[in-house]
């Protein structure tokens, strides 16, 4: 299989993720626009106008094109698993020039920015395997404004779900206008310190408005959304009814003595795009 063919497809996916936001997010922003007044409404108006402009000009809608995370689910029958990592890395370098992306990877020891968006452990690739011969990849570019507001809580299990809600609400209040609300909140509950943060980020892959299939969890999502929107933080922290567009919770079983909670906040520009690569190398970006 030609690696350049895969690279092409991945560049297309990155370009789409950076310049278009998914329809579910746009309709949630429109709904928020209809319900707000004053400064809040004005913020949403500019956001929606920006979404249109970015799509038309095929430009990254935010200058912070983020750190790229790729969620890869590879069919074990796919004949070229061995070149996927290299194809993704090459695509990131190419997309940086072509889309273009802002060079965002900086050496943590020297603060040097070598300009290609590669680096130790970056782009971040999360691997998963499935039966079949196709590969599914989702790209999640995420800016630092929202990522800096992430938080891990290793709570005492005694605080229960009420304690989980308090922790999430505190994070959102502390973040205020900084992560570019209206935000989407990904929450992980359970597992371990590293797993719960991963779950929080994974939760962001769900569409805005899509509830968890387990009723106990979807109830928690609805309660959290209501609590967050009562804070009055509003679009860009200027006050208003819409602080979050949605809350998604993903869970893992926990140790009896641990109650990890991972909060991963996404900005209003909730960018993501996916692609499928077939066993013959043909690909399609969704």
């Amino acid at each position: 299989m030609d690696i350049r063919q895969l690279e092409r497809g991945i560049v297309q996916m990155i370009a789409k993720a950076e310049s278009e936001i998914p329809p579910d997010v746009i309709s949630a922003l429109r709904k928020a626009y209809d319900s707000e007044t004053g400064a809040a409404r004005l913020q949403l108006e500019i956001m929606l106008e920006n979404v249109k402009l970015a799509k038309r000009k095929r430009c990254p809608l935010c200058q912070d094109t983020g750190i790229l995370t790729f969620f890869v689910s590879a069919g074990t029958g796919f004949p070229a698993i061995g070149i996927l990592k290299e194809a993704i890395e090459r695509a990131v370098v190419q997309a940086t020039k072509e889309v273009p992306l802002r060079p965002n990877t900086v050496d943590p020891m020297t603060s040097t920015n070598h300009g290609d968006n590669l680096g130790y452990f970056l782009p971040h690739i999360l691997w998963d395997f499935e039966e079949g011969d196709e590969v599914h990849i989702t790209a999640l570019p995420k800016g630092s404004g929202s990522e800096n507001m992430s938080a891990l809580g290793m709570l005492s299990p005694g605080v229960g779900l009420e304690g989980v809600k308090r922790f999430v609400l505190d994070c959102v209040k502390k973040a205020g206008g900084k992560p570019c609300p209206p935000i989407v909140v990904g929450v992980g509950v359970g597992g371990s310190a590293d797993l719960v943060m991963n779950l929080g980020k994974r939760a962001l892959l769900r569409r805005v408005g899509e509830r968890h299939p387990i009723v106990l969890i979807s109830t928690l999502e609805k309660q959290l959304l209501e609590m967050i929107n009562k804070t009055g933080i509003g679009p860009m922290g200027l006050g208003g009814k819409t602080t979050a567009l949605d809350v998604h919770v993903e869970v893992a079983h926990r140790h009896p003595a641990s109650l990890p909670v991972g909060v991963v906040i996404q900005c209003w520009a909730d960018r993501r795009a996916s692609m499928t690569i077939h066993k013959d190398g043909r690909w399609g970006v969704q």
Partner: protein
Amino acid sequence: MRLPIPLDVVKKLRVNDVVYVTGNVFTARDSAHEKMRAMNPKDLPFDPSGMALYHCGPLMKQEQGTWIAVSAGPTTSSRMEDVEDIILDRFDVHVIIGKGGMGERTSKALKKTGSVYLAFPGGAGVFAAEIITRVSQVYWLEELGMPEAVWILEVKEFGPLIVAMDSTEQSLYRSP
């Protein structure tokens, strides 16, 4: 409003006012703030007097030797909270454009120096790039890289900007 905005006009601006600015702005984020803090105004390679300070790390591209802004919305202002009062004190800068708001220290410095903080929605990068008519100059690009460099930009009717913090210590942001 045309930059530089006369000080008596800046002082009259109040939270919730909506303004559009035309003229020169310079971008500065964490690293540029640190460098400016350590320098005397006469040693700076550019003169920030009268320009608006824009918290922004733009996405730029170069075409035939000319820099063009692709996406250039504001960055999170609160990261500059520990330095901004020193910058306002030392340099002749009275207009800050950013997003997400700043804290009490900056609020006091805005009062002391008769300055304002104007908010523009984060993420609205293409919208903001459209009003940049010219990238006049860039400083510290090699050393700091594209997002952290100081870019001097000519803007035309940059806005709508909301006065989110004024020179009377009023702020639209609530404390957590």
